[in-house]
């Protein structure tokens, strides 16, 4: 009878995953959706621990190990997730995703070990005699996809927190393709190998898959990491589903495939928000080989003009309408609270202030919304792309805070630019543009920005937080 209760646990879990994901896709219900899915997960985990029976009707053992691992994992997880700064959340997600991928890969490796040992005991000559192709496929797919997801997520994590740079070398895509082909070939060899060597081939498959994961993400530019993380996220989902096949576990299968499908669609939606295709993100453009060849995107140079803090303060204080364009720089400088202060101060002085939010500003879609929400910026001050572009026509001063690529006119008028075609915030429509950056270095995508050399534009160099603080003091003094 007990087994039936576990089945019900899994059904409940599967339903909560579906409902939770559905609720997560609407702002009003998102938070509850997350809790619903978490509750379902809790039921599934507790149910598995206490109610699971294997084919011979035996319950699980090694409880001490299981609980120790659960407690260690839960403590690290909660602490890491609670302590992480708002700006570092994207890499945190990538890190957790990598953990899930590694978990899926480990399960498959252990399962391979079982099958391998069983085949050894039976004295089979070939490994394939001891295993059904479908079962082997689930094992090998789980370990390959899990490994790629783990290695890739770790690189993405490292890139976002700055410990890895983009690495580009010649014929990279060809090499990657060859390595991927190598992984597949090794996986097939493992299946047909003489049993004594099958484990070596399997280990080689996993190692090569790890290498592929690293090389797959390395050349992709930091600005595209959200898309990559989302893609790896759906990979992990598929790897988890492979685990579901191994244990005939429908909760794992439902959750895994659901995330795999939703994650893939989400990846495509993210690409669409940048008006680019997935292939273009993965093999092209940012940081890809073409960029180094397409050097003409960098031909701009020339002169830019600087503006002093007091002049900038003056211009903004006496403007009718100021539009703030936040970018990653704002997140790095942790200047969201200071920014909100400036906004309040200007409003007190009768200036209309709005925020123009580009969907991919920052390192993640929605990054800026989350950041500004943290500083209690009112929701109706945040304008989405189209609204913002309308409002910019009647704006006197645009203050660009650490944003670069999302205001780069090259996306509109330079077909050779890697970001050509991406919708941008048309800040040039405003009367004056003030750009706060730390230096003249190009943005994350590594593309020069014509905007900075426009006669309308003035540069205000310095750390975002300090500059904003100075502006506040200056405006107060006016």
């Amino acid at each position, binding site marked *: 009878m007990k087994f039936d209760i576990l089945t019900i646990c899994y059904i409940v879990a599967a339903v909560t995953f579906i409902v939770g994901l559905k609720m997560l896709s609407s702002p009003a219900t998102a938070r509850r959706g997350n809790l619903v899915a978490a509750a379902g997960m809790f039921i599934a985990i507790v149910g598995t621990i206490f109610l699971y029976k294997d084919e011979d009707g035996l319950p699980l053992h*090694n409880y001490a190990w299981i609980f120790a691992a659960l407690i260690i994992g839960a403590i690290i997880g909660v602490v890491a*997730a609670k302590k992480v700064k708002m700006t570092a959340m994207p890499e945190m997600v990538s890190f957790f995703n990598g953990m899930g991928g590694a*978990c899926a890969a480990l399960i498959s490796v252990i399962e391979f070990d079982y099958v391998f040992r069983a085949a050894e005991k039976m004295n089979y000559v070939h490994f394939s005699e001891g295993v059904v192709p479908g079962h082997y496929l689930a094992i090998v797919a789980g370990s390959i996809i899990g490994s790629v997801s783990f290695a890739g997520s770790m690189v993405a994590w490292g890139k976002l927190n700055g410990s890895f740079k983009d690495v580009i070398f010649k014929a990279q895509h060809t090499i990657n393709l060859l390595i991927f082909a190598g992984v597949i070939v090794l996986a097939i060899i493992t299946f047909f190998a003489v049993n004594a060597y099958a484990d070596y081939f399997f280990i080689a498959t996993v190692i090569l898959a790890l290498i592929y994961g690293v090389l797959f993400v390395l050349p992709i530019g930091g600005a595209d990491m959200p898309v990559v993380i989302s893609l790896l996220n759906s990979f992990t989902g598929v790897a988890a589903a492979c685990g579901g096949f191994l244990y005939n576990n429908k909760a794992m299968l439902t959750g895994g495939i659901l995330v795999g499908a939703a994650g893939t669609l989400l990846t495509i939606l993210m690409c669409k928000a940048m008006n680019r295709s997935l292939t273009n993100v993965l093999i092209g453009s940012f940081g890809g080989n073409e960029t180094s060849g397409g050097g003409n995107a960098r031909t701009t140079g020339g002169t830019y003009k600087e503006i002093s803090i007091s002049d900038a303060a003056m211009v903004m204080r006496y403007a009718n309408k100021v539009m703030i364009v936040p970018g990653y720089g704002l997140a790095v400088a942790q200047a969201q609270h200071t920014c909100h202060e400036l906004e309040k101060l200007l409003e007190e002085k009768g200036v209309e202030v709005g925020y123009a939010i580009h969907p991919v500003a920052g390192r993640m879609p929605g990054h800026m919304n989350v950041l500004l929400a943290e500083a209690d910026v009112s929701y109706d001050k945040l304008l989405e792309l189209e609204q913002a572009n309308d409002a910019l026509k009647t704006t006197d001063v645009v203050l660009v805070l650490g944003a670069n690529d999302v205001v780069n006119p090259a996306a509109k008028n330079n077909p050779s630019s890697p970001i050509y075609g991406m919708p941008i915030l048309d800040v040039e429509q405003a009367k004056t543009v003030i750009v706060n950056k730390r230096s003249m270095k190009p943005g994350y995508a590594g593309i020069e920005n014509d905007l900075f050399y426009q006669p309308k534009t003035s540069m205000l160099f310095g750390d975002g937080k300090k500059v904003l603080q100075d502006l506040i003091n200056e405006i107060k003094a006016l």
Partner: protein
Amino acid sequence: MEATLQWISANQQMIYIVILMIFLGIEIIGRVPSVLHTPLMSGANAIHGVVIIGAIIVMGRASEHNYLALILGFLAVILGTLNVVGGFVVTDRMLEMFKKKK
């Protein structure tokens, strides 16, 4: 060939689930506003942490002398828990900020 066909019929429920979930997954997030892309990704990330169930089963079935399975399984449970717990907590933190501004 026969083995494969047998495997398919033995797993037919699973295969149905795969097919239905692919469509369902695409359907339910079809109209998500871009603001929610990141939390949604993070939430989905936590959901695939369901792989931890597999890790627990592996761990619980490993015989006491199979050190490879014990050690790797132990590691897998830790990593899976990290994925689940961390994933849900981070998502909740992100969404908490959306809620404040009404």
